[in-house]
């Protein structure tokens, strides 16, 4: 176990080095000067002022010097602060993360809740009408982009029925659960649809394969009811690839819900990241990127642990 954790940590360090270095170089390639975004639009852009700002931000140092000085701060636990807002990067993440995290978990939860029973049903009734109908529905869901479904949800729930606000975010901690749900249900649903489609397909096909297994026949020959066999014997061996995809999605959702967050004006991490990119707010970009990369590695580790919980054969080593 200690060795497993050690290799994990080593991998995390290597990943972080690669990711931060790549982000840093990528930002270097971006056209434009961060100084421009720092100056008020009506400011008098004198050479001295620009030079002064550049010196303050160490922008004139060579690339490697800047990278390693950032790295040094990072190792000491200092992610720096935004050039623009002055808020520390750590505070920014602490502020935005709960929102994105909630969206990610809610959408995955909603997708799983519907997808797993649908997938099981499809496999159990393979080729019969319940399967045909759900498969067709899944096909449609797969081909609708998230943001189109988001627009539809806004049109239906906010504009036509006026049940829910179209945009905005009520924090769980400030405004309570009901108010929070009112603003989180739509973006979470928009994110859930395509995941639901992918998950249910995966469960269906893995389940179909599992139902061919000899041990399922054994269970049937013991006179156990179908529902028991599906849930107690077949579901677990059929959820390994689902596990992997859920992990990957979770990581992607932490950093990649930009479109939906923007559309529903949700002040999450992705939304903040895009702002930072637009204003060349290098330290914020670096900080959020590092955080997401770390989250990926952590999520992967958790998925591996869950794997061995699901399948005792993996537990051996």
């Amino acid at each position, binding site marked *: 176990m200690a060795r497993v954790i050690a290799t994990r940590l080593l991998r995390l360090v290597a990943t972080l080095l690669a990711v931060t270095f790549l982000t840093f170089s990528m930002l270097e390639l971006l056209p434009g000067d961060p100084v421009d975004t720092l100056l008020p639009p009506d400011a008098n852009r004198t050479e001295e002022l620009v030079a002064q700002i550049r010196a303050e931000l160490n922008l004139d140092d060579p690339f490697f010097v800047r990278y390693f000085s950032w790295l040094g701060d990072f190792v000491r636990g200092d992610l720096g602060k935004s050039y623009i807002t002055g808020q520390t990067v750590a505070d920014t993440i602490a502020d935005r993360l709960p929102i994105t995290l909630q969206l990610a978990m809610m959408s995955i939860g909603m997708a799983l809740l519907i997808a797993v029973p649908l997938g099981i049903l499809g496999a159990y009734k393979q*080729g019969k009408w319940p399967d045909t109908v759900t498969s067709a529905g899944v096909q449609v869901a797969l081909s609708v982009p998230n943001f189109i479904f988001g627009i539809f949800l806004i049109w239906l729930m906010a504009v036509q029925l006026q049940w829910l606000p179209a945009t905005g975010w009520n924090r769980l901690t400030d405004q309570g659960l009901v108010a929070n749900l009112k603003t989180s249900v739509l973006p979470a649903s928009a994110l859930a649809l395509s995941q639901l489609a992918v998950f249910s397909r995966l469960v269906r096909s893995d389940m179909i394969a599992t139902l061919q*297994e*000899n*041990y399922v*026949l*054994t*269970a*049937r*020959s*013991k*006179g*156990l*009811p179908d529902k*028991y066999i599906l849930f*107690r*014997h077949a579901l*677990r*061996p059929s959820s390994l690839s689902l596990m992997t995809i859920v992990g990957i999605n979770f990581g992607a959702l932490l950093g990649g819900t930009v479109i939906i967050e923007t559309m529903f004006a949700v002040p999450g991490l992705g939304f903040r990241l895009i702002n930072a990119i637009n204003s060349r707010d290098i330290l914020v970009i670096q900080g959020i990127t590092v955080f997401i990369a770390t989250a990926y590695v952590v999520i992967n580790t958790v998925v591996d642990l869950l794997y061995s919980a*699901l*399948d*005792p*054969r993996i537990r051996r080593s």
Partner: protein
Amino acid sequence: MNTRIGTRETDDPLLEVEDLHTTFTLGHGSVRAVDGVSLTLHRGKTLGVVGESGSGKTVLSRTIMGLNTASNVTISGSVRYAGEELVGRPSKHLRSLFGPEMAMVFQDPMTSLNPVVKVGRQLTEHVRYHLGLGKSEAEKIAIALLTSVRIPEPEARLDAYPHQMSGGMRQRVCIAMALACGPRLLFADEPTTALDVTVQHQILNLLAEQQRDRAMGMVLVTHDLGVVAGRTDEIVVMYAGRVVERAPTTTLFAEMRHPYTEGLLRSIPKTSEAKHTRLNAIHGRPPDLLSPPPGCKFAPRCPYAQERCRNEEPPLTDPETPGHSFRCFYPIGTPENRAAYESNLAAGLPQTLAAAGQLLATEEVA
């Protein structure tokens, strides 16, 4: 009153199968994997079902138990269990029989147990379901079962997963699992094929012992005539989905009539040369069931095949010795058979030459 019913019961067969057909419809044709099989098994007796790989033994036993439920399967004929017709009954009804009435030990112990479910639960889940027992009672039963199939440290095994056990152990677990609800009829589908020779004997002896103790009827499926020789009351020999010979075990070995049965007997592996069994295998391959030969299905491989065999399918004869019938125009031990052999040998028919080689070989050994 009770005794009268009891006596009547023991006289009635436990299992009667009549003209059973199982057909798989595939994209490019249909496979008649079981093609008009009839058999009878009395209470507490053992029936051996013997045939090469692909002869339909597994499909037959699964069809009898009603486990062939795929949408491309067509089943016709009759299966009566303790007098009750099972073909066409809803699967829910069959399910209530599985466990307390019938059970099956499957061919491959490595894949027949769920790898992610603890052995203890697999042993008892159906007991709990059928008999409505609590967890601790079920656990006691599980320990007793594991003890009865001679698994050491049964308490510790309950929490083990199948991959932590050897093949022989797993097959013992499968047997214990099948016996758990005290079935009156046990199907054992090649219970030892996947195991090595010494373990094979242990498992077969274990099955025989359990069967005696429980007065349980058993259908023992195998490709090895040697396995059923001392362990069965009656034998059914299958080829290409059909019964080609059936007889009480002693009769069959004393006077086998079908050339295929003779071929199977020759291919019994001798323990002294266990690795060389291929040498004595029957010449050629079983027919492709998608397009079987028109006449006798065994004709392309039979050392005695004549023109008639290739055009006309022999019917199952009426029993001459009690209970002994077979499907052959030129049965072993008749002058016609001898004549057919001589003429085929003269004509240089490959399967006859092969058989002749074997005859010489066996004579040399003897």
